[in-house]
């Protein structure tokens, strides 16, 4: 249904300061046509600021914003052709759903009959055709956000911006709506910037994830890369869970409790370091028999998460999280003795603690 190919978006060296606080410290990012990039990070990292600068709701102190080859940095928000979905409260309360969706078209002087038709089509696209005549306060949070999405897309913008659109919703609604947004985005083929603090969301729908901290982009890459090959300890900590195990680096390999594990970045100096090991790289085998792994410990707790379970093991001097299929976790209830092995997946090390 792609009526148009998406456009390229470039953020060049954006800086934004509020008094003495630097919210954005030279952010540079290129979004390919039709791509969905998720900006992920804790509150205050600058991700929302970046989005608002792209939207034109705020002006940068330095840097440029380029959409489809055109420098829009000095253009006010209402002259940029962008569609934006806010976190909450953005539907106009005095208009029913289709009137909300048609609003952008009204601003562009589309005729009344035409814009009603296009609004209704848009509502169909997000699955709310039957709710066209409802007011915002007659709809659930998830439905409101879908109307907001329809409204943003109705004007056929060049870029779609989503500012934590799922944060105000219930967990169950969140995952369904997340997939819905991705489906619509792919169908329309629009270049999209999605801001969130929920790493599961970012990893699930993005083509590339940009992890931010303190106004800077720590890593930008496909979800699998960001997850399995974190570029910095912050990324490793923020995305997914991490075990911190003491080890020793020698010749580009870190030795942790008897296991040699390759490094993500092999050329570091020898010496002691903390290895950041993912829970799924920790395997549990039997109890006590020496044919198992090199580490011995006692299971403290088992957290059942559906398909997988997370087992917390006390090694005596530290605790370790292991993640395994629930069927296997059943063999190791709380209190039992276990042996652990570490899979040699490449890990990141941290020398700062």
């Amino acid at each position, binding site marked *: 249904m792609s009526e148009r190919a998406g456009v390229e978006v470039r953020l060049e060296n954006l800086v934004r300061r509020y008094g003495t606080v630097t919210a954005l410290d030279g952010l540079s990012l290129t979004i390919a046509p039709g791509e969905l990039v998720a900006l992920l990070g804790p509150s205050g990292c600058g991700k929302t600021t970046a989005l608002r600068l792209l*939207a*034109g*709701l705020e002006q940068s102190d330095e840097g440029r914003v380029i959409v489809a080859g055109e420098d829009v940095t000095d253009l*006010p*928000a*209402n*002259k940029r052709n*962008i*569609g*934006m979905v*806010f976190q*909450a*409260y*953005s*539907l*106009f*309360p*005095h208009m029913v759903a289709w009137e909300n969706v048609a*609003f*952008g078209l*009204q*601003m*562009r002087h589309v005729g009344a009959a035409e814009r009603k038709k296009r609004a209704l089509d848009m509502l169909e696209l997000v699955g709310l055709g039957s709710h066209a005549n409802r*007011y*915002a*306060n007659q709809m659930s949070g998830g439905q409101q956000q879908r109307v*907001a999405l329809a*409204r*943003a897309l109705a*004007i056929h913008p060049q870029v779609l*911006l989503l500012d934590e659109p799922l944060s105000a919703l219930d967990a169950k609604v969140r995952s369904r709506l997340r997939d819905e947004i991705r489906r619509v985005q792919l169908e329309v083929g629009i270049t999209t910037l999605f801001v969130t603090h929920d790493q599961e969301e970012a990893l699930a729908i993005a083509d590339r994830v940009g992890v931010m901290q303190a106004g800077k982009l720590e890593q930008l890459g496909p979800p699998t890369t960001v997850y399995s090959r974190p570029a910095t300890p912050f990324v490793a900590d923020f995305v997914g869970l991490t075990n911190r195990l003491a080890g020793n680096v020698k010749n580009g390999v870190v030795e942790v409790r008897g296991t040699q594990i390759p490094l993500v970045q092999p050329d570091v100096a020898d010496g002691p370091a903390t290895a950041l090991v993912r829970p799924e790289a920790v395997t549990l085998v039997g109890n006590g028999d020496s044919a198992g792994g090199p580490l011995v410990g006692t299971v403290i707790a088992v957290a059942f998460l559906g398909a997988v379970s997370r087992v917390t093991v006390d090694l005596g001097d530290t605790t370790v999280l292991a993640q395994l299929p629930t069927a296997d976790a059943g063999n190791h209830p709380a209190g039992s003795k276990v042996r652990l092995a570490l899979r040699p997946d490449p890990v990141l090390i941290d020398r700062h603690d």
Partner: protein
Amino acid sequence: MLGGRRFSLDWVGTLPFFAYVFLFLILPSGIVAVGAFFDAGNSFTLINFAHLSRSFLVKVTVDTVAVSAITAVLGAILGALLAYAIATGNPNGVLRRLLVSASGVLAQFGGVTLAFAFIASIGPAGIVYLFFQAHGLDYYSREIWLFTLKGVDVVYLYFQIPLMVLVFLPALDGIKPQWREATESLGGGTWHYWRHVAGPILFPAFLGGVLLLFANAFSAYATVNALINQGAPMLSQQISNALSSEVGASEPGFAKVIAVEMIIIVTLVTVLYTLLQRRTARWL
């Protein structure tokens, strides 16, 4: 719940209150409402209502409606602007608290002291007038308008504007910043925002304010009586005259019927106001 086997005497505890209220609120109101239908000979009649069409009374009614309408609309506009200036500031700041408290005080401020305040400032012996006169501008050269209905218009604004601030401020607070941003992201500028979004949302509250201010001015008595003590140009003063003058004694229904006229008009406006509030509650 209540009922069951024992007959509850709990309601007796409220007897003093209801008896009191009956005596001093319901009864007088009843006297007014019912008395309008009786003449001096205590026989039922509708003739009192005919008195309402006496030309001087018609003029007074029209004048009162005019003054109320003018001060309501003007007060609403100026009050809305002032409320906007307050609402766009720091919601927890000292300035806001001060201004809201001041509005609460000034909305109550009326009557004799208010009239005096204006007499002391822009009146013929007032400092403002003397100042202008000394500099060549005599604004009372044609008539001393302070003591006419024109003056009443100005003086009434003094409590109408703060009243509007109090009524309108909550509506302004309810405007979410996301609506402005959404409008902008959809291509609308300032004018579009006010014309299509903020304006329609605020209009019911604004209209409600106008109605409230109208009722307030319509039933006011003390202020105008302190300013104009000859001729009774406002309806409330007519009631007062009818009550205490010779005319009242021989036509006891007269004061009551004017009172009934007043209460009908005020109730109408109050009902409209309530309906408007319900309508806004529908989507906010």
